[in-house]
């Protein structure tokens, strides 16, 4: 549910310009009157983050937390457009986070917690990954009855080509035009392998359904509306499919992108020290355990990547900036749409 909260902005600060970005939800975790407040702008739903915020307030009593949820592009617009002052910016859109950091919207922060992060999980001491999520394929068991489950994209292409009648109109994937995450997954796929374009062509021929969120795709697979859902966030899938034998979660073995959820302390922060405090808590062992167990977002762990060679974390490097370029984006989306949407 989205609602335009121009009014809220006016209430928050009557004198300043109203924020020209859309928020989905805002919740204040109170800590008594007059308590300092850390403002977090996030793309992660409040329910998922709430246990972490509560634990943070237990560890640091007397700090209120204002948790604002917005879409990835709105989060980017809010910060890059100096629309509102937030202390901590949490997003799953690595490319946009990278763009913010590269363009100087992030503050440097060094602590024992940030130093403990592996190299690939931080950039310039400004951008820090706090969760790693494989991007997976979900297959419905009843729908694939009698077929071999695909292990690679090449398998998947063969499967789709050989059984067009079974999959026509029954494949779901992100619409990168509408979803930042979907755009990131598609561009990373394209970067990793040429099979992506072949797969897109094949899927395009099977009237795919396009989504702007992982949750709906998983639900549709469970409901039997979809036989396959391609590029779904692993954490959501694992949570939703727990104890459900009707769908199976597949990490494709040619490569499986691993999304890094990341946080940065905003240049415009009013309480950057509180933002840093919350960030350190997120990266601490306690915070990581909570993120892993309660929020269901896998913690940063180089060991799990090392044990599964097909998992490739999307690197926090300037390469991410390429697909943020408007010309590049335009071009990519044109090609993707041409391949995927036939009618």
């Amino acid at each position, binding site marked *: 549910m989205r609602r335009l909260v121009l009014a809220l902005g006016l209430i928050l600060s009557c004198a300043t310009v109203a924020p020209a970005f859309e928020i989905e939800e805002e919740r204040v975790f109170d800590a008594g009157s007059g308590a300092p407040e850390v403002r977090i702008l996030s793309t992660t739903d409040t329910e998922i983050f709430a246990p972490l915020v509560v634990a943070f307030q237990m560890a640091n009593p007397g700090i209120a937390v204002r948790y604002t949820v917005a879409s990835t592009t709105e989060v980017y617009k809010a910060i890059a457009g100096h629309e509102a002052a937030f202390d901590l910016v949490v997003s799953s859109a690595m490319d946009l986070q990278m763009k913010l950091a*590269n*363009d*100087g919207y992030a503050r440097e922060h060094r602590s024992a917690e940030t130093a403990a992060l592996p190299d690939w999980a931080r*950039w*310039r001491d400004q951008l820090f990954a706090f969760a790693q999520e494989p991007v997976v394929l979900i297959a419905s068991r009843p729908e694939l009855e009698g077929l071999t489950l695909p292990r690679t994209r090449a398998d998947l292409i063969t499967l789709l080509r050989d059984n067009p009648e079974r999959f026509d109109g029954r494949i779901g994937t992100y619409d990168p035009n509408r979803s930042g995450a979907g755009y990131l997954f598609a561009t990373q796929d394209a*970067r990793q392998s040429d099979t992506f374009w072949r797969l897109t062509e094949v899927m395009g021929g099977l009237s795919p359904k396009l989504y702007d969120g992982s949750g709906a795709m998983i639900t549709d697979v469970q409901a039997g509306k979809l036989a396959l859902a391609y590029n779904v966030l692993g954490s959501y899938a694992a949570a939703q499919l727990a104890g459900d034998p009707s769908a199976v979660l597949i990490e494709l073995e040619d490569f499986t992108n691993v999304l890094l959820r990341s946080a940065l302390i905003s240049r415009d922060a009013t309480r950057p020290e509180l933002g840093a405090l919350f960030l350190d808590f997120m990266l601490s062992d306690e915070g990581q355990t909570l993120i892993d167990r309660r929020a269901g977002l896998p913690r940063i762990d180089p060991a799990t990547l090392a044990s599964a060679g097909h998992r490739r974390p999307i*690197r926090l*490097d*300037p*390469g*991410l*900036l*390429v*697909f943020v*370029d*408007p*010309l*590049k984006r335009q*071009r990519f989306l044109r090609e993707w749409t041409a391949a995927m949407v036939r009618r």
Partner: protein
Amino acid sequence: MKRLWFASSGSIRQRLILQLLVLVAVLSWVLYLSVKTVAGSAVETTQDAILGSATIAIAEELRGGEDGVAVDIPYTAFSMLGATGEDRVFYRIIIDGVTVTGYEDLPLAEEPLGGLSPVFYTRSYQSETVRIAAVERSVLVGNKPARVEVIVGQTRSAQDAIVAQMANRAAALGLGFFAIAAVLSLLTARSVLQPVRNLTEAVGRRGPQDLRPVERPVPSELAPLVTALNQFIARLSGALTRTETFIAEAAHHIRTPLATLRAQAEITLRQSPDEATRASLRAMIRSVDDSARSVGQLLDHAAVVYRTDQRTEEEIDLVALTRDIVAAFGPAADLRDIGFDLSLPDAPIVMTADRLLLESAIRNLLDNAVKYSALEGRISVGLALEGEGGAGLVRLKVCDRGRGLSGTRSSTLTGRFRRGSNVADVVGSGLGLTIVREVAIAHGGDFRLTERDGGGTCADLSLPLG
């Protein structure tokens, strides 16, 4: 040991070490600076190469078409910029003067672009120093060429970090270099100055009469010094020889005419009947005696002074020497009825000394004793060994019953041309005791005068044996 004090103009060793250390410090600093510079330019060249490749990679992907230029930035173009560090990346693509994508305010090159290679420049952008590569390509749009500029910039923190790291290593190397050189310079200074020390020791160890030239091998740098030293020794040796010759000549030239004069005066005295003339002659003879004694003592003193520096040492039996000299004084003592009480050991006392000096000393002691003794007085001459097992001192004691010292101090009387306050009536030059004292000192011994119990004076000369 007698020591010469002179103004020191500093230590060669310190100067040498200081100069070496300064040199090494300068070299270390130069090393640090050159490594820093070389590393800086090497790293910049490498970074430029990567930046240039990224820029060209973008330029290579430019495609002309009917409706415009297609810009397709390859992922690797920026990804490779992240390979060496975590630098911020900025880019700008301009088609026919219009920025179509990227950072619109990224600075342009001042020099004209052209050619296939990118132009590199450094500018300040977004409050950071940014290294920028710019390249130009001409792309056909329709049938007209469009001018496309690709500009890619990158902050330099990775480069600065690498240069700082290398410079730190160079600094550590320089410090290590300096420490090793410090130790080596100490050793070098020591070994360089070793010949000087050796020469100093060799010259310092020489005996008093060793005036041979220095002949030990020395480094060529010290050769002029040794040559000068040898020339100086030769001059000194010559001067000493001339002094000795002069003393001998003077003794001869003064003593002989005085003896002749005295003989002539005696003859005239015997032949002259005139009492007044005889009285004059006697006075004259006494004066001549006085002069002869003075001259003798002056020559003795000169000889002693000379021989103190130029001793000829030989083994001397002191017992025999004393006995001989006492015997020589027999006639002079007999004239005044003075007798000697000799107390000499039976065994010979042998010591290494200069015979002439010892004779001179003993003769002067006895001469004084005889001179100041009353008529019919007795002089005791004792010679004894002192110290454990006779290894220590030999002591010659000459005591008279003369007029004593009247409280005048021993050290005063042994001064040159000093005489006691109570001896104006006796002929004397005031050099006798000086000679004795100088002989004592030359042999490392001691001389003192003491009041004798019951009147008179005791002269006490002690000399170390060996």
